[in-house]
């Protein structure tokens, strides 16, 4: 058997296609970004749609599950909880019902914050009780959170977080190291504190103000807490610990302006006297204590 090797004139070049890597990259990036944006938005709407339709029992179960992932130091058996619950219960209009009983959780923390979670868990930080100066302010903060609850915002946000989580898992982001179920639970818990959309905030604001007016007959002093915190923040910069309230409730100057405008349009009364807070609200059990030595 004879096979003759014929020397080629030049070495074979293989079959690699000549292409521009940058154009190729741009095309890929564009395709992936557009498709995932479409999927994400569609799933987001689906999550919203679903969030409003889940039964209160299911929501309660989800809320309880998430609640156990939170490791903050909770104060139990304190008279202040009772006070806050009574205040919260007095806020809805007559005939208005909440789909679940709301639970107040008083959290020992020197960061001013308040939040609501799926299942009707309301978190109030002790620092908030020190920061408010009248019951009207406190009532507005509580009513704002109640507004989120009535609009199903916590479950919507949870649904969107889950969508985000599933999407990022599919892309292999954020599951690199530990992976598995504990990571998912941790991240879901983390993401539930994601801020709500601006639209949701405005709706909750409006709800909050209307319920504060409903209780006190006027909207005066209710917004003072915001004004004061905003001033403090501007004075002392973003390093201030207090500013966490705004990271979950982004406050822009126009938030107050919009509320005042809405109040003017609806003819809400915005003048009146503030109702003082119980004297020792910042102390455990509302028993007299030293200003700085408390807790």
């Amino acid at each position, binding site marked *: *058997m004879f*096979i003759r*090797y014929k*020397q*080629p004139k*030049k*070495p074979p070049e*293989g079959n*690699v*296609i000549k*292409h521009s*890597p*940058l154009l*190729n*990259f741009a095309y*890929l*990036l564009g*395709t*992936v970004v557009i498709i995932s944006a479409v999927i994400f938005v569609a799933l987001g709407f689906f999550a919203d749609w679903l969030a409003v339709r889940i039964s209160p029992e299911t929501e309660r179960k989800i809320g309880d599950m998430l609640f156990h992932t939170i490791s903050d130091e909770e104060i139990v058996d304190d008279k202040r909880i009772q006070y806050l619950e009574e205040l919260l219960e007095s806020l809805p209009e007559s005939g208005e019902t909440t789909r679940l009983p709301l639970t107040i959780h008083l959290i020992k923390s020197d960061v001013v914050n308040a939040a609501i979670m799926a299942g009707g868990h309301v978190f109030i930080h002790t620092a908030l009780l020190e920061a408010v100066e009248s019951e009207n302010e406190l009532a507005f903060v509580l009513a704002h959170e109640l507004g989120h609850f009535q609009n199903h915002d916590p479950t919507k946000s949870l649904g969107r977080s889950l969508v985000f989580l599933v999407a990022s898992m599919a*892309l*292999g982001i954020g599951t*690199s*190291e530990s992976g598995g179920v504990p990571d998912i639970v941790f991240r879901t818990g983390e993401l539930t504190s994601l801020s709500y959309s601006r639209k949701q905030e405005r709706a909750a604001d409006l709800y909050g103000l209307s319920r504060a007016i409903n209780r006190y007959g006027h909207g005066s002093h209710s917004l003072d807490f915001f004004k004061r915190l905003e001033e403090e923040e501007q004075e002392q910069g973003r390093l201030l610990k207090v500013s966490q309230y705004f990271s979950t409730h982004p406050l822009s100057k126009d938030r107050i302006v919009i509320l005042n405008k809405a109040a003017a349009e609806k003819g809400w009364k915005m003048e009146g006297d503030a109702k003082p807070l119980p004297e020792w609200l910042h102390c455990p059990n509302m028993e007299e204590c030293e200003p700085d030595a408390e807790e």
Partner: protein
Amino acid sequence: MDGLEILIFLFLLILGYFSGTYFEKRHYKSIRERERKTLHVPMVTFGAKQSLPEAQDAQLFVGSVVISVDYFKMISATLRNLVGGRVMVYESLLDRGRREALLRMKEEAMAWGANQIMNVRLETAAIGGRSGNNSGPGSVEVIAYGTGIR
């Protein structure tokens, strides 16, 4: 924090693109030059179950090369994984690896005095990369081996 992460990502991407393109161009230039120089020695896959041509000596020659993916190629390929299709950025990488491994084998055989290389085989192996827990940029090893005769 997010801003910093994006900056690092962009930095790695740009670095990967420019250094990757530079090294690839340089490598191809060297490959073409050496292929032209060694073209006169036949290199064939013939010989597996056939007897080799009459010769004095026969010896095994191995050429192996490891080439790393750059960050730009890696991200490009990750995106391609989502969409599907030819991963062209990796094709050039493997092409370089294959040709370089063959060249290394051939050059060694020619230094020994081979006038033909028979029964040439190619193997590849992935090092690191997406397999297992290591999600960093991976490398590919290409091994070429054949029997040189003189």
